């Protein structure tokens, strides 16, 4: 028979075993605030533990069937708690701060993952989520897969970009038929344009700026980059080119508009390597090529 002493000395080892194997871990109830985090959770095969997502979680489409906690910056404590989460994972965008404090007071662990516009950030978030959800093995495999895709994509970009001038690209974010914002440096769009070996035509400015006709003409973009959602709002490529100033740019003259899905292009999630390939192929295509989705 084991003495009491023996049992005590075995306890830490048993605890380690429990932590290491998933079989013992109770399933989590996770709320994901941030579209890219939701995508990563699906990639890790942990979607069964998701009980709620935010309004930017549009991909995969199954995620939109989950309870929606609203816009990341206007969360509601009681709404979050009604889903009985054991964990909330969010990007730094989540707020307002008062509601985050209420969550803390209700003893719901809140994990804020850094949202940065670098591919390495995707790997860091994959690792962090893997640890939080007890899926380190899947996270390592996903990281390796994403890294391989990324390396291939970067090599392809180098190949595509060789032998001609880097195209000047203007990212236009429009949410209505007659107004739009354009992306300067320190934005997700700027980072993707840079990775695609192109030049941000508005690189001198910082952050998103209201589109002004003269600034657009002065930026002289060869290509206009837009999102599917934005294009729907502004009435297709023709509607987009009606925005003041855009028609007079080289891109407007040759009608070179590249269109991509918002979260794929700007989300910095598991779809980023493939999005980069698509983007680079479209940006470096010979002049005269039209719309790419």
């Amino acid at each position, binding site marked *: 028979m084991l003495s009491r002493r023996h049992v005590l000395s075995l306890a830490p080892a048993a605890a380690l075993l429990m932590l290491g194997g998933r079989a013992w871990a109770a399933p989590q109830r996770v709320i994901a605030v941030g579209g890219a985090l939701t995508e990563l959770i699906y990639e890790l095969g942990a979607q069964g533990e998701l009980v*709620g997502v935010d*309004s930017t979680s549009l991909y995969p489409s199954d995620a939109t069937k989950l*309870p*929606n*906690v*609203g*816009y990341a*910056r*206007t*969360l*509601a*404590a*009681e*709404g*979050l*708690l*009604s*889903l009985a989460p054991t964990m909330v994972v969010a990007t730094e*965008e989540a*707020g*307002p*701060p*008062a*509601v985050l*404090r*209420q969550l803390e*007071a*209700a*003893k719901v662990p809140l994990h804020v993952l850094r949202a940065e516009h670098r591919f390495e950030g995707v790997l860091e978030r994959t690792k962090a989520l893997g640890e939080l959800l007890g899926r380190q093995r899947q996270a390592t495999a996903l990281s390796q897969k994403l890294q391989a895709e990324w390396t291939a994509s970067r090599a392809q970009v180098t190949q595509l970009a060789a032998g001609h001038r880097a195209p000047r690209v203007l990212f236009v974010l429009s949410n209505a038929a007659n107004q739009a914002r354009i992306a300067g440096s*320190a*934005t997700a769009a700027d980072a993707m344009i840079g990775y695609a070996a192109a030049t941000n035509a508005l690189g001198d400015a*910082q*952050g*998103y700026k209201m589109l002004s006709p003269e600034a657009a003409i002065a930026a002289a973009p060869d290509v206009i980059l837009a999102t599917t959602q934005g294009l729907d709002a502004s009435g297709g490529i023709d509607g987009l080119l009606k925005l003041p100033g855009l028609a007079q740019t080289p891109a407007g003259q040759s009608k070179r508009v590249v269109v991509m899905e918002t979260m794929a292009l700007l989300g910095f999630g598991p779809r980023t390597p493939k999005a980069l390939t698509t983007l680079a192929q479209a940006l470096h295509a010979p002049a005269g090529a039209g719309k790419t989705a």
Partner: protein
Amino acid sequence: MNSVGSALPSPLAAASSRRTWSRPMLLTAALVLTVIVAVQFGAVPIAASDWLNGPWSDATKTGGAHVLWQLRLPRLGLTLAVGAALGLAGALSQALFRNPMAEPSLLGVTSGAAAAVALTLTVFASLHAVLPAQARLWLLPLVGFGGALAVCFSLDRLSRWLAPGSIAALLLCGLALQAMTFAVVGLCSFIANDDQLRAINFWTLGSLAGANWIMAAVMGGALLVLGTLALRVAPRLNALALGEAAAAHVGIDVERLRWQCITMVALLSALAVAWCGNIAFIGLMAPHLARQLVGADQHHVLPNAMLAGALLLVVADTLARTLAVPAEIPVGVFSALIGAPWFLFLLRGAVRRMGSA
């Protein structure tokens, strides 16, 4: 002290006294009923046992009891207090300006707070990094409160200097100052980065989501003190209704009355706006409702405007937090959506009565 009400002929006074007691009772009953409904409804179902686990017990750390005692009840308390404060501030503004379109924002309170917050978020963004974490939580409410009071009192100074004694000039100076503060907010939005822009936006929309017991207690305490003080100026506000000159003739120090009213309005709405952002329409709407119910005597208008403001805001906030569960709709949407049609309905009644008189 003179009272306009006592000068009324007796049959009218009797009718008016019936009205001043039965209708506020109805309003109070409506408010109590709304509060009961508001406590029951929410994203998390509340069990009867959650009520028994008072805020002192361990059970309130998590689950339904926590939601009830730490989220829903303090929020309801803050909503009641903010609604009443906005209603009172609106009634005082309308009495002071003798204008049914006046509301606290005409004194620059809302725009002053917005400008101060916008400046703190953008130009003085580095301030955030310097402050310790605990102080950061209170930074925006304090700055908003300071901005509201600063604009309010500089408006008072400015109008005294430009056109001493004229309440119309005060109103016009207020419009000019408001334009300037909006320019500051516009400039801050222009230099703001994406995050800062959204923070400014969130703040101008208004929300009661961050409520806790401290906020509810401070707001309730301020309401108690300022409400009592407001009732004490009611007789003089009644006299002011006859005009500034007439009020001065019956021995009222209009300057002093103005100063007292502005201070009360500034404190009430600055507190509300500092914690909850800009909640539209309650300050304009509640005094009208009160006058419809109890007539023009400020003794009755002021407390009933508080009741009406509280009722309106509790209804609006309950809809805001229950209709889109688990998300939340901005409360300003509902305060305007319920308030505006009701306001039009009252207007129709008031115009008819004027036509028949």
